[in-house]
């Protein structure tokens, strides 16, 4: 097991991409709160303003819709943040996107050179042009293989739930050399203001995150666990220790936490403590002891008539 995966196994809670991931200082708070690693906001080859506001709103308690549109300062402006993260000994996963195989590779290599511990490939932002990659197994293979070839550090691929078969995409990523899978990115969604009769987000549609998508993410992780051999990072709506445990039981080796942190930086500590309590009460030594435990039960395949 590589150094990176050892660290994750020790502390299998990771800050998800897109949440408080612009500045090293917010990521530092979350790392100090008990995260094993942080994933930065997705970084591209050049500065990008993204979509105008409204771009992030809470539409149900703990459930959010966003269309930020991959806003980011560009890799060259972001290198100082990566260096600052590493200066603070923070295990750093840089989320990377581009507009071609070349730019994806170029950004990933620059992040690696700046000191990143791993790369998370964002091929699945639901409201940007790059989502086309994660919808096609050949494109997924091509992008992952090309980036992997240039990397010495682990490559994680973040997948979208907005596809017919997430399994075939995951297999493609694994075949191309991905070291882990993050599942899932946000779910395609829309919210309409009934007074003005127009979509609220400036982009029209966006991605749903938070509590409402947790059961969707659990099901995707459950499916993927049967299909791929590489580790799965469960991501989507973890607000409590119970939510995290569900991911491990479904087959995740680690859990990403995002939306829940808006309330309070300490939210991550509370989630971890309650999840650890579960291990203690049920006499497990580590989270790895419960990975995939929800599998192997006989489920009813044919309804009663």
């Amino acid at each position, binding site marked *: 097991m590589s150094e990176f995966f050892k660290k994750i196994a020790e502390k299998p809670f990771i800050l998800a991409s897109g949440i408080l991931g*612009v500045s090293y*200082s*917010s990521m530092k708070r979350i790392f100090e709160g008990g995260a094993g690693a942080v994933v930065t906001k997705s970084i591209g080859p050049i500065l990008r303003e993204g979509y105008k506001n409204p771009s992030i709103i809470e539409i149900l308690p703990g459930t959010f819709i966003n269309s930020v549109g991959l806003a980011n*300062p*560009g890799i060259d402006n972001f290198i100082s943040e990566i260096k600052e993260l590493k200066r603070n000994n923070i295990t750093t996963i840089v989320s990377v996107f581009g507009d071609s195989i070349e730019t994806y590779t170029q950004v990933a290599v620059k992040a690696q050179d700046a000191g990143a511990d791993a790369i998370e490939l964002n091929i699945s932002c639901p409201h940007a042009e790059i989502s086309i990659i994660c919808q096609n197994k050949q494109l997924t293979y091509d992008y992952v293989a090309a980036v992997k070839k240039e990397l010495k550090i682990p490559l994680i691929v973040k997948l979208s739930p907005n596809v017919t078969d997430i399994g075939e995409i995951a297999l493609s990523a694994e075949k191309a050399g991905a070291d882990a899978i993050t599942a899932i990115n946000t779910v395609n969604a829309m919210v309409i*203001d009934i007074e003005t009769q127009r979509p609220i987000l400036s982009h029209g549609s966006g991605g749903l995150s938070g509590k409402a998508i947790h059961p969707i993410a659990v099901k995707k992780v459950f499916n993927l666990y049967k299909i791929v051999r590489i580790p799965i990072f469960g991501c989507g709506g973890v607000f409590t220790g119970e939510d995290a445990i569900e991911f491990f039981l479904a087959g995740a080796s680690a859990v990403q936490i995002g*939306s829940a942190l808006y309330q309070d930086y300490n939210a991550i500590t509370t989630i971890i403590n309650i999840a650890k309590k579960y291990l203690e009460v049920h006499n497990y030594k580590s989270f790895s002891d419960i990975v995939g435990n929800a599998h192997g039960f006989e489920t009813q395949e044919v309804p009663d008539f």
Partner: protein
Amino acid sequence: MIKKPRMVQISEIVQESKDVKTFTFNINSILNNYSIQYQDPTPGEFLMVWVPGIDEIPMSLSGFNNNKDWSITVKKVGECTETLFNLEKSDLIGIRGPFGNGFQILEFNSNNQLNIVVGGGIGMAPLIPLISELIKLKIKIIVIEGVKSKEEIIFKKYLENYLIENETFYISTDDGSYGYKGFATDLFNSIIKKEIEKGNKINQVNSCGPEQMMYELFHICEKLNITFQGSLERMMRCGFGMCGLCVLDPSGIRVCREGPVLDSKILRTCTDFGKYNRDFSGKKNTI
């Protein structure tokens, strides 16, 4: 708190100066239609104001009353504020909030204590409800409004009506076209020293305006060992602590969540204060 943007009708518009207008709207319809639990806002809290088709921007509340009439005061500075500025009575705007932490009025315990309130230009807006609150609590106040030139003075009549003794309301203009000639910080410096000489104790200094101005005020207060509270402005997408654009280094303080009003204790930990902010892409820039 209103979490999803909800439309309200503008009920009143007051022109404060050539480029500044106050828009008032009643939020009872939102509270009733969507069963939203109501809590009185605190002076200094802000709304995300949506102008459909244009943008959504953070704006401090410049007024609220028991009738649940809320107001925002808008200065024409960009596309969104310009569109807002040109709206008419009965037009709709979307609002969500109020977000953040407002001014915390420190308890005072002697008669010769006073609060000094310093606003720079449109920064006067969130200070208006604070001033009302201080008056209600019978705390003595001195208000300083700093503007570039006479035409930019706002809330003058309102403040003169409220602040009975004339000497408690001062105006500075950079060009000397009205009141004290020079920066609000210089006026503040001379006033605070005079008050201390008179034997008055400064309970706290509250401010909103250009960050350079607040940065200087903060340092004057630090030297005099006086508590300072300033309302900061940063780019925001969410307004509730998620996007990370308004984070202050190196402490990770979020202007939208732990702020926008931050006090000396926190500001001391923020090396970004007065120096850096982030643009909409997340890139850090010098202020």
